[in-house]
């Protein structure tokens, strides 16, 4: 119990500071008191100013991150199954090639990618943000899922197939549910990464209606040129973190339980 407390305090103390700062008035932003005095919603009002289009940007982020996660899970599951269960030539090479793609600094592929998407007329579209996020997520997703699928004893599937399941059914009813913690974690990781992606989302959109939340936040300004919009950035930081936490709390039970229930049946 002490351990849990220590971990939680370590993780949440700086976040607490973020929340507190977000409730200070702009003019008190340098304060170091444990609670804001006076409390102020100034920063939140600023964030929700219709001109900022912040809600719209959250919705865009949801679309981009949601689509990325769904696609990444499907595609990576297929590939990871092949890696974990099938024997085919160049397997190691493919697996190495996949991981190699996550070794190039993003700053260096933005310009070529921008040219490519400009040619395809993809600027200001969701796919221009989903495709890169997908490709950043896939290597990790494939590797995690491969590691988890490998952990599931092959005998289980064989037993199921003897009972009359097809290979696909055996996979869906036995392997996936048992690997649920791994699948779920992959989903969270993919979603968070896509939700927070900034450089690509910034470069591929110039229409405010298409921008994602991190891009919208980068456009916050103080009331004058040099004034740092620290308060509203922190407020926005709190706001973009909340959906993720809610998602985890609400869905983790359902996903884990649901899949496991299917397996035990």
């Amino acid at each position: 119990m002490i351990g849990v407390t220590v971990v939680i305090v370590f993780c949440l103390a700086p976040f607490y500071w973020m929340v507190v700062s977000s409730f200070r008035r702009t003019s008190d932003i340098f304060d170091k008191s444990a609670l804001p005095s006076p409390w102020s919603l100034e920063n939140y009002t600023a964030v929700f100013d219709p001109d900022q289009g912040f809600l719209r940007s959250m919705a865009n982020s949801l679309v981009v991150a949601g689509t990325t996660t769904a696609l990444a899970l499907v595609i990576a599951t297929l590939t990871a199954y092949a890696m974990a269960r099938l024997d085919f030539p160049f397997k190691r090479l493919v697996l190495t090639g996949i991981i190699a793609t996550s070794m190039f600094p993003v700053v260096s592929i933005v310009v070529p990618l921008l040219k490519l998407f400009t040619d395809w007329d993809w600027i200001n579209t969701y796919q221009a943000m989903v495709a890169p996020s997908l490709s950043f997520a896939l290597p990790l997703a494939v590797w995690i899922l491969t590691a988890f699928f490998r952990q599931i004893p092959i005998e289980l599937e064989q037993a199921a197939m003897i009972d009359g399941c097809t290979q696909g059914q055996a996979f869906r009813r036995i392997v996936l549910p048992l690997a649920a913690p791994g699948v779920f974690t992959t989903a969270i990781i993919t979603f968070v990464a896509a939700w927070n992606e900034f450089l690509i989302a910034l470069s591929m959109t110039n229409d405010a209606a298409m921008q994602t939340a991190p891009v919208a936040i980068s456009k916050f300004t103080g009331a004058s040129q040099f004034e740092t919009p620290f308060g509203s950035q922190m407020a926005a930081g709190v706001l973009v973190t909340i959906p993720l936490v809610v998602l985890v709390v609400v869905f983790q039970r359902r996903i884990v339980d649901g899949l496991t229930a299917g397996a035990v049946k």
Partner: protein
Amino acid sequence: MTAVLSRPPSDRRAGSARLGALLVAPTVLVLAVVVAYPTVQAVWQSLYGARGIDPESGFVDDTEPFVGLDNYAVLFTSAGDRFWNALANTVFLTGTSVALEIVLGVGMALIMHQALRGRGLVRAGILIPWAIPTAIVALLWRWIFNADGLANAILPGQVLWTSEGLHAKLAVVFADVWKTAPFVGLLVLAGLQVIPKEVDEAARVDGAGSWRRLRSITLPLVKPALLVAVLFRVLDALRMFDMPYVLIGARKESVETLSMLAHDEASNVRFGPGAAYAVILFVFVFLVAFAFVKLLGADVVGDAGKGVRSRKTRRAKVIA
């Protein structure tokens, strides 16, 4: 799989290869278009130098000169000092951050795994640092590490965290560990959750102490998940950019990483040298990953864990 398994071996192999290719194709396709193509472009770009300026007209030249491997060769002259410093910083920051993240992450995972009630909430709690966008986290820490900020209010003395020196490195490591230890923790926790309870209980019945159980049962079983987590943390940390850039600042010798260097070159419209740094970083990361997989992680891709499998078979029977 029985269908495949029951066929003659050569036929089975061909069928398996065809299915394998089919299942792998989507991943390869996405990666080829979105990453591999721009990467090849960047490699090509690295063979070109910066444009010159025409002293008469004052205009920058239309084309970039082809310089072959000059952008690489220059690293071995005195002009390469900044590069070697950045490489050393990158290795230092990666090494210390990842080492601390492993220890903390595994600790977090074990603690979360044992928490009986409110596991979902605890998990959401430790997820928070990692869920906040990096740019915002870096701003938050910059504020905390201000000369007149929270860190100096809590700690004795006044350390100028964002000025050059070891303290700047430490600030980056601390902030990075805070942000990404939960990532390792989450993956290890997932690894713990797929270990059948019976395994641990059997060991307990056999009289193994908790430290022994951790070392000889739990850790080997979460090894695949841990290795994947560490591998990807290393890959990510080697490309570290936002945290030192926002928290400490650009062009600071103490914390400038290879990614920052590549960014600085490209933003000064020297795409060739910038691309060259990116290519070197790529090769370096590749070698590290290769060594990593060779030394530690054969069982990440290979057919290890046979012992695990037979133990798990017991559980299979339970479920069946």
